[in-house]
């Protein structure tokens, strides 16, 4: 019927215009014999896609791109995207920070460019409380040896520890990130790490200081050994992560940056050791385990002072 042919032609024309609108480089060839459904074959360039399948895929890709757009910072979902980690991922990142290797970049290898805020936040909280509690415990141990030292819970140290650790773990990455962006301002190649990735690196690198509860062992050279080991691991992790970013820079800037990072880390470790950990009294002669097994009321005769409680 003529009407049906007209309708078919219209449908085919619409289909052709739609396809053309989407891929402007295509050219339409029409087969001489219409198929019963009246399809139009569209021949496209090499840059285009074939058939209707890729249309669906490009639609899907467009949709996925829209989903990947970050929601605004005032929505809850924005912050939820930073906590999108599983237990196994967090444990893997912690292991990666404990064992830095020269070729392994923490950001690329472990974070895989998906930083999280869970690790830095709770590692800093744990570290602050561990420092305060361990510091308090050393005071207890010191008082058992030398009863003239007045023991008190020293709760204000928790506040100090918290503020110090959080400021270090958030302000130093901010400064580092700013500096790296300034240095790379002109070159548009591989960009520096985002702010969150830097925070992540610093946060996870602080994890190695948590076992400093071992500093309770009152043997001085052992304490310094543990401190040096922790500092070396932590600083090595930072240096290996930052090296790929700064190696394209001038040698002077690279060395200055890396040495500043290591220096700040050292300052933090030393400051924590001296502020939170009570140096043990030196005039005690008896070995530590003997002093701890005795009740505080009885004293070894070498101590000149007597208990005053």
């Amino acid at each position, binding site marked *: 019927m003529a009407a049906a042919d007209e309708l078919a032609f219209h449908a085919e024309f619409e289909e052709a215009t739609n396809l053309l609108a989407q891929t402007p480089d295509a050219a339409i060839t029409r087969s001489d014999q219409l198929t019963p459904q009246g399809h139009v074959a569209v021949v496209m360039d090499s840059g285009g896609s074939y058939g209707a399948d890729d249309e669906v895929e490009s639609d899907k890709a467009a949709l996925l791109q829209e989903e990947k757009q970050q929601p605004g910072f005032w929505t809850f979902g924005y912050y939820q995207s930073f*906590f999108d980690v*599983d*237990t196994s991922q967090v444990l893997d990142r912690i292991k990666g920070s404990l064992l830095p290797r020269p070729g392994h970049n923490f950001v690329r290898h472990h974070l895989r460019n998906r930083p999280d805020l*869970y690790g830095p936040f709770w590692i800093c*909280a744990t570290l602050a409380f561990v420092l305060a509690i361990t510091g308090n415990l050393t005071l207890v141990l010191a008082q058992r040896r030398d009863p003239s030292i007045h023991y008190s819970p020293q*709760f*204000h140290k928790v506040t100090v520890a918290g503020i110090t650790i959080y400021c270090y773990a958030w302000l130093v990455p901010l400064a580092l990130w700013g500096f790296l962006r300034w240095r790379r301002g002109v070159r548009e190649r591989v960009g520096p790490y985002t702010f969150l990735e830097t925070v992540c690196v610093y946060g996870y690198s602080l994890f190695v200081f948590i076992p400093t509860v071992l500093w309770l062992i009152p043997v001085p050279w052992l304490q310094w050994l543990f401190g040096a080991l922790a500092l070396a691991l932590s600083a090595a992790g930072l240096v290996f992560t930052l090296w790929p970013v700064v190696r394209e820079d001038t040698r002077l800037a690279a060395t200055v940056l890396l040495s500043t990072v290591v220096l700040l880390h050292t300052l933090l470790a030393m400051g924590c050791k001296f502020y939170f950990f009570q140096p043990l009294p030196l005039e005690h002669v008896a070995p530590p385990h003997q002093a701890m097994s005795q009740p*505080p009321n009885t004293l070894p005769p070498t101590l000149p002072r007597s208990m005053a409680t």
Partner: protein
Amino acid sequence: MAEAAESPGDPGTATPRPLFAGLSDISISQDIPVEGEITIPMRSRVREFDSSTLNESVQNTIMRDLKAVGKKFMHVLYPRKSNTLLRDWDLWGPLILCVTLALMLQRGSVDSEKDGGPQFAEVFVIVWFGAVTITLNSKLLGGNISFFQSLCVLGYCILPLTVAMLVCRLVLLAELGPINFMVRFFVVIVMFAWSIVASTAFLADSQPPNRKALAVYPVFLFYFVISWMILTFTPQ
């Protein structure tokens, strides 16, 4: 006025007569008033309940709230997987517990301001901001528990630690010594474990299974810090 319509008889039809066919033959000469009372038992009870909570005595109101708080205390002391704590949350219990704990942790007179134990404000801040942080953490990790439900659970599970604080204060009335310390240490450890078990019994189900440990660890840290404050309390 209802008048019957004369239904024309059809003596010749063989159709069956419809139901109630004879009703149309009835004619009523006067109106029957249709009035009366419809009493629905439910509605009257609701109405009575609404007005009673306004007019009841203050003692009734307080006792009702106290009973609710007491029931939740029982649920914490014997943790089962029930929804009572979650369903009707309230923050009275956590407030009572936090204030009691903070008051008991205060020292009588401090020789130096800086060297003392936690002050009232510090305990308060740690408990409430700690609970808020844990709740935010669990919600950001994708848990499906509401904000106040989580605060309620965390606050109520401080009850074992408050009991531990009471016991510690009583034990500290005796003479100081290592036995004293061991008793206090044991009590605090047991109550700490009780708190953790109670709170995870309520909170663990609301997390996706591959993130449970991530959500439970801050709870552990929170109760650990409170236990530490209780254990290191020394009266002066």
